[in-house]
């Protein structure tokens, strides 16, 4: 029986003496990720004394706590009670999430792997751009590097393999694809995914408060722009302007 079919879908994994992982499954699945986001929001609202931090990932929530202030037994009892409150796999997504429309320059130097990706998908570059930009993707988690987000999922045919030879670095704002997901970089980092676009939007900027703009659970679509617009928005972003449109979901 898979995790998702059990009545109580949450499983606790150890994470050192000061951590615990609450896992809702072991596959990339919207329902599982939804359970993670909803449960993380519930945990934060519960504000259990002794918990210092929670961090949602694709299928689990990491809880950091002080075991001398909150025993593992008590923490598990609190978690059991929260887990039992509802069927987390069917829970509505948490309130207060944002929906972003983020400008992106597809192809060329900004997205050097666009032609190859279109070939792999068996579609024209125009079709690829339209399908990718219009797909409403969710921030499944942030990880790997500051402000680096995993977005998903894309339609089934986007189940592309990673590159066999990773690229040593791509700039902040790079949008790359593999395994029905997009990654959106916020710093200059290496990648093993195919880079199809770059955005002038800065998901992470130390000169700004808040430094991080994308949150786990936010929804993202992209607005294709041309090179001139990219240059203009890049200048505005450097001056501190948020160059994406955003609405709060209720």
């Amino acid at each position: 029986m898979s995790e998702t079919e059990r009545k109580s879908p949450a499983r606790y994994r150890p994470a050192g003496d000061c951590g615990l992982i609450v896992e809702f499954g072991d596959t990339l699945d919207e329902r599982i990720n939804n359970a993670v986001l909803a449960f993380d929001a519930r945990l934060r609202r519960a504000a259990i004394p002794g918990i210092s931090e929670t961090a949602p990932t694709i299928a689990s929530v990491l809880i950091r706590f002080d075991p001398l202030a909150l025993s593992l037994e008590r923490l598990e009892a609190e978690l059991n009670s929260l887990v039992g409150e509802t069927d987390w796999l069917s829970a509505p997504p948490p309130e207060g999430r944002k929906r972003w429309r983020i400008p992106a320059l597809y192809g060329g130097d900004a997205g050097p792997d666009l032609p190859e990706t279109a070939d792999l998908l068996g579609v024209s570059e125009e079709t690829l751009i339209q399908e990718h930009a219009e797909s409403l993707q969710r921030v499944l988690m942030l990880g790997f590097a500051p402000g680096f987000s995993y977005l998903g999922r894309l339609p089934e045919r986007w189940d592309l393999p990673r590159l066999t030879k990773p690229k040593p670095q791509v700039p902040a704002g790079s949008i790359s694809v593999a395994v029905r997901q997009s990654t959106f970089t916020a710093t200059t980092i290496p990648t093993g995914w195919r880079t199809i676009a770059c955005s002038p939007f800065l998901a992470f900027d130390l000169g700004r408060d808040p430094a991080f703009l994308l949150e786990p659970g936010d929804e993202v679509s992209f607005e294709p722009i041309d090179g001139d617009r990219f240059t203009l928005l890049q200048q505005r972003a450097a001056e501190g302007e948020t160059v994406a449109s955003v609405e709060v979901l209720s």
Partner: protein
Amino acid sequence: MSGRLEVLSAGPCVTVQDHGRPGLQRYGVAEGGALDPFALTEGQALLGNAADAAALELFGMGGSFRALDRPLRFALTGAVMPAVRQSTVGERESLAWRSSGVLQPGEVLEIGAAAEGLVGYLHLGGGIATEPVLGSRAVHLRAGIGGGRLQAGAVVPQGEDAGRADRLTLPQHSYLALREIRVLWGPQAESFDAHERQRFLDTSFTVSNRRDRMAARLEGAVLDASGHLTGLSDAVSLGDVQVPGDGAPLVLLADRQPTGGYPRIATVIAADLAAFAQMPSATPFRFKLVERDQALAALKAWRAELSSLPGEVRPLVRDPHSIPDLLSYNLIDGMISVEEELP
């Protein structure tokens, strides 16, 4: 009153560190901070600094540092490194470790390679007054937050120093010599069969020279994680022992990647993280599996020792002839960065 410290030369990884910036895991940032928080706290006790004061972390190798503007109170803690104070007329005096002193303007502090442990700390009275970023002065090398490695020519600003005490010392703590690192089973221990788990506990490991503030690669056993089928990334913790595709375990440290898809067989208990960070390369050690209540007892004892440090500070009484000038030898081997897991 505050002065400045000029970096005349620096080892390969000299960085400003404090207790780091926990709470940003959900945004893709591990907490970072001093690899040896005990040594950080020792310096704060010796100088009467605040708990959030930052110090220079000397990874494997020190450097030469000159006081500017005014006398600087300083303290040396963590890995034992040969240290010499050179006066403005060239007189050399060897300095005791785990002790405080004063560097007069123009005087130079020369610190060599770690002779015992790996990571030393140079503290200034009043701490270091670099600009805090996201609530901390810690340099997070992998995330690119808080600055970078200090190099020759850098000038480090001292914080406001209201303290006056100097020539104080602390007794040596035994954790620098610990060769048995206690662990709990990790989040994916079940991905390793019973035989592999036992082999992990039976192996005499060494830390290779592939180590940095992010992780330390181990030698001694190649573990089989072929039972780990899901490659789904989740959040990793400080001290996780991760087994990547090549089977050579990595212990994940302060500046680690925040998430990873390789299985983690074990996690070093919080009380032994400093001991592991100080483990010299090529020195045999073992992992010892403990029960959770033992880990908690160890954590309790560790915190008690940390909080008792201010009361253990004593005046420094010493025979200068008993401290040889060790700076001329014992250069560490080059250290290489750990290869990263890509998304």
